[in-house]
């Protein structure tokens, strides 16, 4: 992207609320919110090569933490942000720390297990979570007496979160952790042999993905202002995974773009009811078949086909 176009992105995003109708803005807020768990998942999926189907559940842990702190204990939402992030990270590490060593399909299966554990806990620990009733009347975020209770106002908060999370993620990926994660996803044994602390790097990636999910859940809870266990089942997990993978192999911009495309599609296909999932599935299949490296490759002028990897799959002995 030319520098000029790039510099214009932020002012344009700031002006959008003045120009767009309420409904479009509403969709945009969801896109911004989902950007967080999707980027977070990118740490695990794109950079560590671990496919997780628990991101929706972690998103839910963040949402429930702030929902309960603000409704039950009367905390101000601003004060609940850090706990929401920390609780999500703690849950992820407590149940995910042990399974993050697992490879490939085993890790995927384990994350489905985590998804189930969280879902069942939210639904059945009624004293804490109110179970199937959900948590109502979650207060809006208030900053210096200014309540972000409208879509327009909330848009700016969501934008702020999305921008910060994007910039931070960008810097993390450029840090030595980004190098370690890419190395271990390419060849774990070789990463070990160059003194990369493989397990520590993986757990860190898991913690980061949870932190981003927790912050996203925080936004979600204070925007929708109602949480229910069904909101955080396997469906959002699949959605986030698809957004993260469809978007672009290790490309944050691609992930954000895919989030925008797929979330818009979900919203605008809503009139078709359950049938929209079929259209959704077709879009996905087409994307995976024609843009296996992510949808952003559509815009790359020189799409280079990767040559065969030499001796990539040989054993140790």
């Amino acid at each position: 992207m030319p520098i000029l176009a790039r510099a214009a992105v932020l002012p344009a995003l700031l002006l959008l609320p003045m120009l767009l109708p309420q409904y479009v803005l509403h969709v945009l807020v969801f896109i911004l919110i989902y950007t967080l768990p999707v980027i977070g998942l990118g740490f695990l999926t794109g950079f560590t090569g671990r496919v997780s189907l628990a991101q929706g559940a972690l998103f839910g842990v963040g949402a429930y933490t702030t929902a309960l702190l603000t409704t039950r204990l009367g905390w101000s939402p601003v004060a609940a942000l850090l706990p929401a992030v920390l609780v999500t990270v703690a849950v992820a590490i407590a149940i995910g720390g042990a399974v993050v060593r697992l490879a490939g399909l085993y890790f995927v299966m384990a994350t489905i297990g985590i998804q189930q554990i969280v879902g069942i806990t939210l639904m059945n620990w009624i004293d804490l979570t109110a179970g199937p009733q959900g948590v109502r009347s979650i207060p809006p975020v208030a900053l210096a007496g200014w309540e972000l209770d409208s879509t327009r106002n909330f848009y700016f908060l969501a934008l702020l979160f999305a921008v910060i999370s994007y910039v931070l993620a960008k810097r993390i990926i450029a840090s030595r952790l980004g190098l370690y994660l890419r190395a271990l996803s390419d060849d774990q044994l070789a990463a070990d042999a160059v003194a990369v602390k493989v397990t520590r790097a993986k757990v860190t990636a898991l913690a980061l993905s949870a932190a981003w999910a927790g912050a996203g859940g925080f936004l979600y809870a204070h925007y929708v202002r109602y949480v229910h266990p069904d909101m955080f089942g396997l469906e959002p997990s699949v959605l986030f995974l698809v957004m993260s993978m469809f978007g672009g192999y290790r490309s944050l911009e691609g992930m954000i773009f895919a989030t925008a495309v797929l979330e818009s599609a979900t919203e605008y296909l809503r009139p078709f009811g359950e049938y929209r999932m079929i259209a959704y599935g077709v879009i996905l299949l087409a994307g995976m078949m024609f843009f296996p490296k992510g949808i952003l490759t559509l815009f790359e002028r020189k799409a280079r086909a990767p040559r065969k990897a030499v001796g990539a799959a040989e054993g140790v002995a």
Partner: protein
Amino acid sequence: MKLLQASRVSLSFKGVRALDKVDLSIDQGELVGIIGPNGSGKSTLFNVLSGIYRCDVGTIELAAARIDGLAPSQIVERGLVRTFQNKRLFGSMSVLENVLVAALKAKSGSPLGDVFGFSGSRRGMAEALELAQHCLGRVNLSALASVQARELPYGAQNRLEIARALALEPRLLLLDEPAAGLNPAEREELRGLIEKVHAGGVTIALVEHDVRMVTGLCRRVIALDHGVKIADGPSEDVIRNPQVLEAYFGGATSEETSHA
């Protein structure tokens, strides 16, 4: 001074003896060749020394400190570094990044420091970058620094593995069949490179199939067969050792005797 001392190292896989009471001692500054036919235990020995496998019996000391039982990354941190027979590069990363990952070992700073630009982290990263570039220069890969590793021609992948190992600043470098798959010109170049690295003060153990290359490079050679050390001494003696000749050239009938 003894750098590596492995004593009575044994390892079995499902009852098959892969290594049988192997003693191995390498002095500081040596360039030792390890030869033996396919399946004689050369790579297994390297896998045990570098911590990928744990030996069933025996002890391994690096600079008089026990390293058996340590994780591979801990062993690397103590200065024992290896390359792999089947090149194990980070294919999706650039040539420079492949070496940079290694060069970051023992450099100051942390990921968090990188993210927020702390001075210790910036310094560590700059030092690592300098070391990585230096190592690429040593193997003549500077011009290809930004190429993706999996796009490299085979011979260059080979040198990249060595550059990555050098970036770990090894005291003892284990090279596992570095010449495999190279053409004669590349072999010659590799020979020169190994000599240069050795002359730079790195102790090297070289597993190699090509006996000529080993005898050309190494004054001392160790021969393995069926997991047993059958010879250890000056290279010209070892290659004339009847047991070694039999291990290499003996038919199926002589297998029992060479095992004994």
